[in-house]
């Protein structure tokens, strides 16, 4: 497999497009949790019951198309290798929980990978829909239309006062989790983000790192999402989220300007050093790669680095995850082998830009 072919496989088509505010917002996602009214939830269901649901999805939706979402492909998790499962997780098309649920888990993925449906995760149905940049309202509209289309064949578990009924009480009501993936290097660098998080939490929104564990956010990539699903309409939830995201964008832009004014040489040094590391290293751990990629992306946004496409951060963050590296190598790799391959892939990817 050539690197170009591999990248074409690794990067979802929608990720290559730029959306509004895509210098800071990488993507917007809407996730809707739904269940069948007349089947017990996957949390207590037997394998046979879950198999029935899986079979229903295969017969009803495999190779079907709706709107922009063509040729939905039904994939049974148990037909995938461990590495293939991991690849779907790293592309954010399925959750780690579904990847582990090998017996009854399945997914439907549209050919442009903008929409995926997880079957038999914690709920029977979880619709996920992505848009590049900050486009929550558009994503919601599309997710609703897709939901309506699925619903023509399913009787959803719904209660007039409690809304869509879900396995976990944290999802009941709208069943919606709206989230925005943001690159916030200047706020992280100036340690302002940590101070903002409590205030954001107060508004019923959650901030967390996308890659890495605990409080550390690799690549300065953060996900902001709603926590409350009951008592507010989907439109109100996303408009609250949108408001906070817009404020974060302003703060981030302001912090970038300040950095440029106050310590331009220091900032340039950091960015070009990181570019050098990415271009010449032979061994690279994921943490180092993430930090350097974040710096280079900032350099691109600040017009310091030209001739490198701005999708490089998103692309290489996904491409250099353990599952993808092993998929590229077509075999299992040790951590050390992964670090060598990671460095090689990044170098080659940067060569493609020249």
């Amino acid at each position, binding site marked *: 497999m050539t690197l170009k072919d591999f990248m074409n496989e690794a990067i979802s088509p929608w990720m290559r497009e730029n959306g509004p505010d895509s210098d800071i917002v990488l993507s917007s996602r809407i996730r809707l949790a739904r269940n069948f009214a007349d089947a017990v939830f996957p949390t207590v269901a037997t*394998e046979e019951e879950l198999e029935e649901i899986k079979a229903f999805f295969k017969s009803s939706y495999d190779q079907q198309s709706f709107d922009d979402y063509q040729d939905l492909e039904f994939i049974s998790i148990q037909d995938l290798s461990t590495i293939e499962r991991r690849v779907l997780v790293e592309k954010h098309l399925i959750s780690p929980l579904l990847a582990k649920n090998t017996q009854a888990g399945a997914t439907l993925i549209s050919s442009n990978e903008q929409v995926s449906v997880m079957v038999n995760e914690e709920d029977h149905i979880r619709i996920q829909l992505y848009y590049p940049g900050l486009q929550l309202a558009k994503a919601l509209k599309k997710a609703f239309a897709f939901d309506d289309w699925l619903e023509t064949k399913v009787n959803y578990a719904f209660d007039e*006062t409690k809304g*869509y009924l879900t396995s976990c009480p944290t999802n009941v*009501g709208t069943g919606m989790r709206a989230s925005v993936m943001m690159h916030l290097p200047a706020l992280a660098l100036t340690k302002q983000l940590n101070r903002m998080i409590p205030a954001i939490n107060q508004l019923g929104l959650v901030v967390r790192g996308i890659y890495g564990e605990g409080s550390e956010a690799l690549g300065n990539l953060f996900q902001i999402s709603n926590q409350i699903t009951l008592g507010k309409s989907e439109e109100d939830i996303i408009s609250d989220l949108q408001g906070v995201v817009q404020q974060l964008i302003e703060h981030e832009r302001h912090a970038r300007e300040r950095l440029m004014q106050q310590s331009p040489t220091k900032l340039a040094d950091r960015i070009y050093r990181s570019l050098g590391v990415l271009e010449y290293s032979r061994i690279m751990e994921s943490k180092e790669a993430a930090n350097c990629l974040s710096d280079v992306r900032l350099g691109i946004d600040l017009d310091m680095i030209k001739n490198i496409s701005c999708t490089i951060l998103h692309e290489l963050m996904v491409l250099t995850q353990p599952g993808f590296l092993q998929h590229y190598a077509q075999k299992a790799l040790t951590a050390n082998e992964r670090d060598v391959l990671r460095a090689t892939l990044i170098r080659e990817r940067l060569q493609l830009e020249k």
Partner: protein
Amino acid sequence: MECQECHKRPATIHLTQVIHGKKMQINVCEECAKLKGYFTYPEEAYTLHNLLTGLFNFDSPKMESGTNNTPIQHRNDLQCPTCELTFSQFKRSGKFGCATCYDAFSSQLDPILRRVHSGNTKHAGKIPKRKGGNLHLKKQMEDYRNQLKTLIEEEAFEQAAKVRDQIKALDAQIREEEAGDDK
């Protein structure tokens, strides 16, 4: 109760898992839960963590360890007639078993929902097309009324008149459907 994996630390996480069609209770400490991958999905870990540390604070963990490891089956424990999940099981796992659970546990549910959803207990969003009946139309009506109010406040009277016509038409439609239901 001690952790069933390491037998050292106290079990702080209690999960119900279905393995080969059988419900299994899993009682582990936080470290072993992470190690064994009972929750590795950040989103899941977050909500579970929340549920397990505070939001569901009905039984204090101290009281539980003082009962000589025998789980008390409350005599008045609610049980779902459809999936047979008990309310105590729900409190431990934080997960419902089916749609009927919501009815079966309804008397105990609102305080939990209030804690999780900032005081809210009533759905205010989308309604399924199939089930909605004229709920749809009623929600649409509410939206129109809100629109009308805003338009009048903004003194956009031309548009307001249009919305008022839509309200009239919708009102007629609702009446017609309700009359149809009575037959």
